[in-house]
């Protein structure tokens, strides 16, 4: 039994040292990572809403019952309200759409104006096939979402106005469907003015 205890303790010792080292490094890197993540989001939010104005203010919005179509992340869709930093007028929203792509969950940052028209999209994260699905990140494709309304926001095959990436229908569909579903969820909660009713 003593032998066993000794072995266990040695392993514990090693693990202890490892944990200490990791804890130390983590305490140094975690904030950087967090900051970076935040910056990226911020940057993405700014990019997708750049057409709404120059000085914008972002506030997260709590709407009861705003269901996240992709419930695996969060049951509530985290919508950020975009308003003019000066006047405080609400100009639109941003949110992150999650769509199950070919080999990863594609995250798209979506910017819409207050009427529900998309003003910009950019891919936050994807691990799709290089050369195919990964091309979703590229401007010519993701750029076509700009100006689209909810009903147009699906691939042509499904009757929408989004051209699929050749050979990567699944990724195309994942992005457009997830964006549309997010918008639909917001529409349900009457977040958009006029026009966009069911």
């Amino acid at each position, binding site marked *: 039994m003593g032998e066993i205890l000794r072995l266990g303790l040695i392993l514990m010792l090693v693990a202890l040292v490892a944990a200490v080292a990791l804890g130390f490094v983590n305490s140094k890197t975690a904030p950087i990572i967090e900051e970076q993540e935040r910056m990226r989001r911020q940057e993405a939010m700014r990019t997708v809403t750049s057409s709404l104005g120059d000085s914008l203010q972002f506030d997260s919005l709590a709407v009861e019952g705003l269901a996240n179509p992709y419930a*695996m992340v969060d049951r509530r869709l985290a919508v950020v309200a975009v308003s003019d930093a000066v006047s405080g007028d609400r100009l639109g929203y941003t949110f992150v759409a999650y769509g199950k792509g070919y080999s*990863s969950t594609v995250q798209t940052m979506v910017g819409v104006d207050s009427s529900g028209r998309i003003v910009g999209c950019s891919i936050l994260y994807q691990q799709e096939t290089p050369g195919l699905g990964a091309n979703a990140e590229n401007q010519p494709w993701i750029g076509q979402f700009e100006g689209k309304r909810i009903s147009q926001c699906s691939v042509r095959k499904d009757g929408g106005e989004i051209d699929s990436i050749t050979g990567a229908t*699944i990724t195309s*569909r994942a992005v457009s469907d997830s964006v549309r579903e997010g918008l639909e969820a917001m529409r349900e909660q009457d977040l958009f003015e006029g026009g966009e009713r069911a």
Partner: protein
Amino acid sequence: MSASMLMAAVLASPDTGGGGVNVAKMMAIILGAIFINNFVLSRFLGICPFLGVSKQLDSAVGMGAAVIFVMTLATLGSWLVYHLLLVPMELTYLRTIAFILIIASLVQLVEMILQKFSPALYSALGIYLPLITTNCAILGMAVLNIDERYGLGESLVHAVSAGIGFTLALVLMAGIRERLETADVPPALRGLPITFIIAGAMSLAFFGFAGLGG
């Protein structure tokens, strides 16, 4: 850890939020893991045993079964540890080290239990267990489940399906390699090279499943 805590954690897992299991999503996970994103052929996980244990059909089947078994158990263990221990304590950065420890000890434990209580099963599966510790498919599965934010149920389904997918690839490969034993493969390509080429061809054929369940 009390049972109620466990229950709470499981219930709190996202996938049960929608009320009831989403069949379509489950199908997507299953088909995805077996065919579309086959661990070996598409995600490049578990290549070493895939190359190593695919020489004979018998061992391929045994290995496959062992992988399914351990993968499921490891997923269960790692998911619980991650969501009940690491997440609450904000120690998620320890996941790699924690998972590998869990997997290693789990394999050992299973081996021990099997040997003790079911010698028949041990001789069929047990001999493959040691090989699984360093099978990146298992660790990959644990990490993927976290990255994909799967709930416990989904994770388990994912694990079983991925294991089946792995077994499928392994068994097919073993059959082909047995046949190639008596084929006129150019000497330079015999052994590993041709195995890679077959894997490539298999991977290409599996493209046919693209979009299934999606």
